[in-house]
């Protein structure tokens, strides 16, 4: 029995006209760190709200800790921890007041589960008499996590905890999640940042309410069809134009300082042919190297391959 199960969950808004979650099924094992990866509007928040019993699905079934989200919502509410996407603390209460309020709400005390939050709370303890509204983004995020953890939940739901947070705080946050996992808590986390996917044990790539792929990050990367090349030249912008006009290339898109290029059917001399093509276009400083695809490469590949995604067709 999984810690969290979803079966054929479907959710619409606006009287059925907006499809948010489209026939989604997956299982999260106890103690797993599971990521829902996808852009805004992929349906991540809807799934979290269905699992935390805040919304009812149109159809399908789901359980958390073996409890049905529809019938046994009270049982779920007393065991899970939830951090919504919006900053969800009382701005006019101090750090300590926030924490003790949520502890009482969950019929526990700060002292009872202090060992669980100790490491995180120690970082914000110097500011415990400061009002939550005056904390920095990273500290707010830590306090919200402490509040969600204070009753030692069996399953922790974190909806986009790193959105709008700078790269340094994001790294720290994922380090904290790794350590929480050691305590045996099942963690579901969602994020629009593809580079965070590798921090999870398993991930579901989501787009427009559908799951594009679900597996371990390594397997998802392994499933990338064919070889991928990183290409660089002195004039990057013209390079991108020329690569898009190159008939053998299945897709070409900017990726950091490189352009990533995938081919229709892989040949041994793909890179050499490309080098000649680019030299013919008078490019200098050409670098072409085979690379291991990242989650983002796989996501782009899946997105452009899926014909359902009408508005995601341009990266050829």
């Amino acid at each position, binding site marked *: 029995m999984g810690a969290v199960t979803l079966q054929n969950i479907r959710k619409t808004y606006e009287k059925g006209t907006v499809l948010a979650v489209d026939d989604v099924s997956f299982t999260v094992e106890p103690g797993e760190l599971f990521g829902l990866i996808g852009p805004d509007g992929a349906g991540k928040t809807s799934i979290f709200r269905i699992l*935390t019993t805040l919304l009812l699905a149109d159809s399908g079934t789901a359980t958390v800790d073996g409890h049905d989200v529809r019938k046994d919502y009270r049982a779920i509410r007393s065991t899970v921890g939830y951090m919504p996407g919006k900053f969800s603390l009382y701005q006019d209460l101090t750090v300590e*007041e926030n924490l003790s309020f949520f502890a009482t*709400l969950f019929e526990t005390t700060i002292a009872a589960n202090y060992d669980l939050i100790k490491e995180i709370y120690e970082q914000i303890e110097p500011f415990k008499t400061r009002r939550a509204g005056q904390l920095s983004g990273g500290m707010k995020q830590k306090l919200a996590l402490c509040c969600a953890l204070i009753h030692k939940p069996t399953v922790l739901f974190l909806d986009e905890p790193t959105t709008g947070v700078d790269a340094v705080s994001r790294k720290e946050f994922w380090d904290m999640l790794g350590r929480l996992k050691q305590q045996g808590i099942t963690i579901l986390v969602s994020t629009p940042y593809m580079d965070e996917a590798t921090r999870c044990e398993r991930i579901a790539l989501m787009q427009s309410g559908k799951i594009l792929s679900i597996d371990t990050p390594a397997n998802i990367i392994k499933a990338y069809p064919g070889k991928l090349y990183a290409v660089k030249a002195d004039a990057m912008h013209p390079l991108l134009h020329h690569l898009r006009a190159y008939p053998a290339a299945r897709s070409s898109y900017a990726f950091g300082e490189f352009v990533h290029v995938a081919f229709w059917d892989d040949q041994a001399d793909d890179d050499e042919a490309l080098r000649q093509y680019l030299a013919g276009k008078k490019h200098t400083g050409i670098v072409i190297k085979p690379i291991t695809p990242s989650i983002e490469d796989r996501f782009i590949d899946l997105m452009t391959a899926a014909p359902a995604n009408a508005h995601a067709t341009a990266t050829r």
Partner: protein
Amino acid sequence: MKQLLVFIRKEFYHVFRDRRTLLILFGLPTVQILLFGFALSSEVKDINIAVVDFARDNASQQLISKLQGSTRFRLQRAVLSYPEMETAFRRNTIKAALVFPANFNVDLLHTGHGQLQIIADASDPNTATTITNYLTAIIGDYQQELNQAAGPLPYQIIPETRMLYNPDMNGSLNFIPGVLALVLMIVCTTLTSVAIVREKELGTMEVLLVSPFRPLLVLIAKAVPYLVLSLLDFTLILLLSVFVLDVAVRGSVLLLYLETTVFIIACLSLGLLISNVTSTQQMAMLLSMMGMMLPTLLFTGYMFPLENLPVFLRWAPNVVPAHWYYLIVKAVMLKGLGFGAIWKETLILAGMSVALLGISLRNFNIRLA
């Protein structure tokens, strides 16, 4: 139980840490009561009055010249008949009229009693009261002069006052029950709904729902502080009325508190209902202002006499809880009546409270949508 207490304490933190809420809670009633209080005792000057002199005798001429000597009044040309006077009132060219009956002087000299009529436009009750007071004072002066000149047999001039348009003088002291209804409405309905919707906006409502705390208790925890605060406000207004404006509470204070609690429950239920159907603080504010305060101002009868309502709106006051509360407070506080006189109003108000509470609880969503 401990959870509920902690929750209620948190609500009080929110209130006491927000200067704007505090201002609405305690500044608003104080300002309202004092403003109305000042308006009540405002100086009256250069008031247009007409004299309808059927007597045309010595005494009437003497009194008229005394009036002309006063800076408070500006005497319009003496009108000759009632119809002329009524036209003047309707055109708003005069605020009051003094009517001398045909045999004023003769009656006064022979019987020692003279009758006079003061007619005032009471659509502005405060001014009407002040005008009649001044007129009565001038007549009193004249009577005293007569008595000093005359022998031992005292003359007595009896002015009879008639209030046009608003015979019950709704509005003079009635602003106190009116302000009570308005302030309680703001505190209970507006502040309560905003307090709940704020949690929705902040995202904390999601966390509250995903906790073992029962959703209904969230509502109770939100309602209790505002119940306490509005009773505090009620006490504040009573104290201000008694000690600043010298308006005594004639009936039972306990009865007043009980009736107020019934009204507060109606207001709180309305607040909860509004918070159920809105998701932003602005919307909640707008809805409670437009939907609740406007009817309170228009239909309780303390700002505008209900007799002046157009026929198709005559039913409206009956469905506004504040109207019934206003009638109850007026009866108990200003007229000193007991429960026997207001049981009907109480029953209607209680019925409304129960109905509203029922609707808002039934509509409360244990989920987000």
